[in-house]
């Protein structure tokens, strides 16, 4: 009799209209929860991406090629002596977006009245501009080491501790490749804030060739590689390991170098999933309450419908349509609002510059850009759908047990 889906929809809509306040409450609950959930997922993932990218870009790269003893001993004598052999291989890999050569040596930095431990990093500024976006991290000064390579760029926290500013001179003392102590003077040309603690707190960037001359090495201590897609790290790592046959050379993925970053990413994904499940399990209780009342107050109505030939499965469909219409309208509103909010924060970021130094401790910028993933919407859609179906099932079972046709007689 009521086989037409259109008719079922019409009836469901009329019923929702009759009890519109309840429907609004449910839709509002779902849409607001969804807005909150999308905001939380997008912003938290955005933070993780920022922390990881800051560490990868200015630190390890997605992959890092080093001498096998350098990481454990940190002695500059453990360097890659023929980087060209490796860079020739890298030039032919399509997955690689860029790579740079670097030298890193720990030493002592001194001003007129104070000294401190420092990590001196030799870089090629032109290549780093493209690779690590270093120029954009400058907070003061010019992006240059001078024509004679006497300039240096200092991490902002180190500069703050040493009380040095652009134009001031610092003296670096460190060990060369024969373990002799060497010193050199550098003029600070710029201050940098990368949110990578290794640079901000302990880093002094100098010209790579000058550092090579100072330390007496021809090679480099690191080749930092960035890939077009971060998730290609395992396959490119595998290829490079089979192609680079020098036993002195090792290649690390950022996951090996920053295990805590990778763990944090995994934990954040689990946390987001648990949050989604928790929110929609609680939401299903709200849906259940409304559907239960809505079904039980219409037992007679359903009894009459069944008495004139409507099958129970059509009643089931009618109740399901009602529930789905309410929850899905909540989902659509929530997804639109939450999606727009995420899009806004993805484009313009959430500016929390008042907490800039606090965020730097966690390796984050003060402007947090949200991430927008398709899975946020699909996961929450499935969750809303499941919550609705589960929450509607129990009232329908209760209705079936009550035997609606019998109820007509009982109540008259």
């Amino acid at each position, binding site marked *: 009799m009521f086989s037409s889906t259109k008719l079922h929809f019409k009836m469901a809509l009329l019923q929702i209209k009759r009890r519109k306040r309840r429907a609004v409450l449910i839709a509002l609950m779902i849409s607001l929860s969804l807005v909150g959930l999308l905001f939380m997922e997008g912003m938290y993932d955005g933070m993780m991406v920022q922390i990881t990218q800051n560490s990868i870009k200015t630190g390890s790269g997605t992959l890092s090629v080093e001498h096998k003893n350098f990481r454990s001993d940190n002695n500059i004598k453990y360097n890659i002596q023929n980087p060209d052999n490796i860079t020739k291989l890298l030039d032919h890999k399509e997955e690689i977006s860029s790579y740079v050569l670097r030298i890193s040596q720990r030493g002592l930095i001194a001003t007129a*009245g104070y000294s401190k431990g420092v990590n001196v990093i030799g870089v090629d500024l032109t290549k780093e501009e493209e690779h690590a976006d270093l120029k954009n991290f400058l907070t003061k000064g010019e992006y240059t080491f001078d024509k004679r390579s006497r300039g240096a760029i200092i991490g902002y926290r180190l500069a703050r501790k040493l009380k040095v500013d652009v134009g001031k001179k610092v003296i670096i003392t460190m060990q060369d490749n024969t373990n002799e102590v060497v010193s050199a003077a550098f003029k600070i040309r710029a201050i940098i804030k990368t949110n990578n603690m290794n640079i901000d707190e302990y880093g002094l960037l100098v010209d790579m060739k000058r550092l090579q001359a100072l330390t007496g090495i021809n090679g480099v201590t690191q080749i930092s590689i960035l890939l077009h897609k971060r998730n290609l790290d395992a396959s490119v790592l595998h290829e490079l390991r089979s192609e680079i046959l020098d036993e002195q050379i090792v290649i690390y993925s950022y996951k090996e170098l920053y295990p805590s970053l990778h763990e944090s990413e995994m934990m954040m994904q689990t946390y987001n999933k648990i949050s989604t499940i928790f929110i929609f399990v609680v939401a299903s209780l709200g849906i259940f309450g409304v559907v239960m009342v809505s079904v039980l107050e219409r037992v007679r109505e359903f009894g009459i419908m069944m008495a004139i030939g409507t099958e129970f499965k059509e009643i089931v469909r009618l109740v399901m349509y009602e529930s789905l219409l309410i929850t899905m309208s909540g989902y659509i509103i929530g997804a639109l609002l939450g999606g727009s909010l995420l899009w806004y924060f993805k484009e313009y970021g959430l500016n929390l510059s008042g907490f800039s130094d606090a965020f730097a401790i966690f390796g984050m910028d003060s402007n947090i850009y949200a991430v927008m993933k398709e899975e946020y919407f699909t996961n929450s859609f499935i969750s809303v759908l499941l919550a609705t179906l589960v929450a509607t099932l129990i009232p329908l079972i209760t209705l079936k047990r009550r035997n609606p046709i019998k109820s007509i007689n009982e109540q008259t």
Partner: protein
Amino acid sequence: MILLKMAMRQLLSYKKRSFVTLLLSTFSTAIFIFLNALSDGSHNQIIRSSIEVYPGYMQITNRKFSDEPNFENLIFDVQRVKKSLKNIKEIEKYTVRFETFALYSTNEHSIGGMFNAIEPESEAQISRLKNSLVSGEYLNAEDTNALYIGVELAKRLNLKVGDNLSFISSAADYSFAADNLIVKGLFKTKLYEFDNSAAFVNKSYFDTLMQSENIATHIVLMPRDIKEVDALTQIVQQAIDKDLEVQSYKTLLEDLILAMEVDEIFGYITLAIFFIVIFFVIAIFAYLSVYSRIRQIGVLRAIGTSTKQIVAMLLIEASILGFISVAIGGAGGAYTSHYYEKNPIEFSSLSDVNVEEYAKQYNMVADATLPAEYNPQKIAIEMLIMFVLNLLTVIYPILMINKFTPTEAIRYV
């Protein structure tokens, strides 16, 4: 009294609905209290560890030292300051330090690091240096060229207890100072960068070598009551010379404290999202409860019950549910907070997360435990918030129901 009876009867006649509301509200209260206790506990532990590892709760320095940390801006009469501090009863202990940098050299390595002089006995009572000993021995007041060095720095210099090394540094009069040292002990504070860069000698030995007799960079104070640190800062500032300044950990670790506050804010955002959905479910149940007896309310109004009495009855119902759930949830949350304050959660029992790697990444002390903080006053406020939230859920149904006239309510289907 009759309103209370009616409210009770109403709650009992819709047992399942009342139970679900009660359950949700109890759960929310318990989780709210416990998560806040856990957040406060872990943040306080991070801050406390960062203070106690080395910096201390209060530091006296030359007023110009923080802007120009050079040998022109030192504390030049330590005995005079000590004399002033002795008269302040709010100070429990204090210790004197001289912090500078040196280049340490072994046969193979030369590495720059912190070269600090301490008074071993008083230092042991203020910081965790002595307790962080992992091999060899801690310093004593008679030590001469004995070095107490961080494990990570020792690893980089390839040193173990009993090994020799030399150092070169600037003395307080800017002359060169150098000597041979013997590693007496290794320490591990679990603050990676500190363990990677710091080494200590006995101050009386340091003074003869570095021309720093009666001179210091810092005097570190331990207050009797940590909560009174702000007041004590003012008292000490009044007692010492004007060219010196005293700063509490709130200034010294400003960034870290701010970072913990930011983390707390994000924790509240997450909780707020969970609470939106819980609040809505309770509100929906309250709405259904009120609307399912709209006819009954119409009859009550028709026989002379005033709107105020109806509102009071509905509020009593919400209050009963709110009170029971807040009491049970509050007790549960408080008990759990108290339990985990005494028995902190072990990270290893939660996951395979490498705590040291995490701490190293964020330059924080690697504590493998997550304690809660049991604060009865704060718990009472949180319970009150939850009770008010429970009452708020019936505001909308009450406002709606009051729009009906008694006849409209009786005819309502």
